[in-house]
């Protein structure tokens, strides 16, 4: 039970790992992505991407700005313009 999560910015591939769940700040509201999520393509608004590595673990927040999120067969790909680390 793992979701493959990739966070990419123009400068580099920030993350590429297997996680439990990611909450994405979508253009029309936040949505959580678990493994086996139906294919979705969404714009994202500026905000925090919340990554749950394990089911009960503490979430990790990554601030992102501008971009897209795509859920496909190979997991979740977030294309962001800026990532604040």
């Amino acid at each position, binding site marked *: 039970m793992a979701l493959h999560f*990739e966070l*990419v*910015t*123009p*400068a*580099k*591939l920030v993350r590429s790992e297997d996680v439990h769940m990611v909450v994405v700040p*979508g*253009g*029309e509201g936040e949505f959580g992505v678990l493994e086996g999520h*139906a*294919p*979705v*393509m*969404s*714009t994202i608004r500026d905000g925090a991407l919340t990554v749950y590595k394990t089911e009960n673990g503490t979430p990790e927040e990554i601030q992102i700005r501008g*971009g*897209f999120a*795509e859920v*496909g*067969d190979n997991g979740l*790909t977030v*294309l962001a*313009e800026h990532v604040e680390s």
Partner: protein
Amino acid sequence: MASLKELKGRINSVKSTQKITKAKQMVAAAKLRKAQAAAEAARPYASRLTDVMASLAGKVSGDDAPKLLAGTGSDQRHLLVVVNTDKGLCGGLNSNIVKEARTRARELEAAGKDVTFYLVGKKGRAPIKRDFADKIGESYDTSDVRDPGYNEADDIAKALIAMYEDGKFDIAHLIYPQFKSALAQDPTTQQIVPVPTPENAADSEACVEYEPDEEEILEALLPRYVKTQLFTALLEIAASEQGASMTAMDNATRNAGELIDKLTIQYNRSRQAAITTELIEIIAGAEAL
């Protein structure tokens, strides 16, 4: 025959030139590694974006497609976006890019199209101005930033899209060198506006949900795609500049070394000749007594 003093001066001058070229070569080698890493790190984003574009462009077509994808319906006015370096000392890189741009412009003009230039980087301005003085529209200066990056690409893309929306041109091509290795940088031309529809647009997974909807996503995606292309071009030119510079400076250093050797031999010979002449004079003088 040059005098000893002159020769010595020339040797010293070539030596100091060699020091400069050697320093520049080492700087370029160090910067090349960084620029190459940056260019490689940017590839995942560009390829993912192209994938997303491919799956979307197939779905939105026909009359409701945005202008950036569908074009203006005419192909009369072409804009050539030429990306050059800001600094010299990089061998034939800039002249190769300018040559490519010139060939394109001539081709388009031969086909009866109007051509204008949008120049990025300092070094392309003079040679293009020589041939197409009245065709240069605007230029973008990257010389005051250390490493042109995403912000600069953003500015250029915004300027281009604004020009496109004002109807200043119909088709834009981007001309930049593709970094192959330190020895080879191929100038390439690529259409960026209207955004070319990817060939593998045929899509199997039909049940993708879109939020808000296809058109709106595409509208946000297209400018970003143009921006990414420009960003790639800026990174490629940075890597190419350092690569070309390294090769050119390596050659220059070697050349200077050869020149120094040659001049040293000449210097030694003339010194020897001068000594021999002096000796003969002394001996002849002693014999005459």
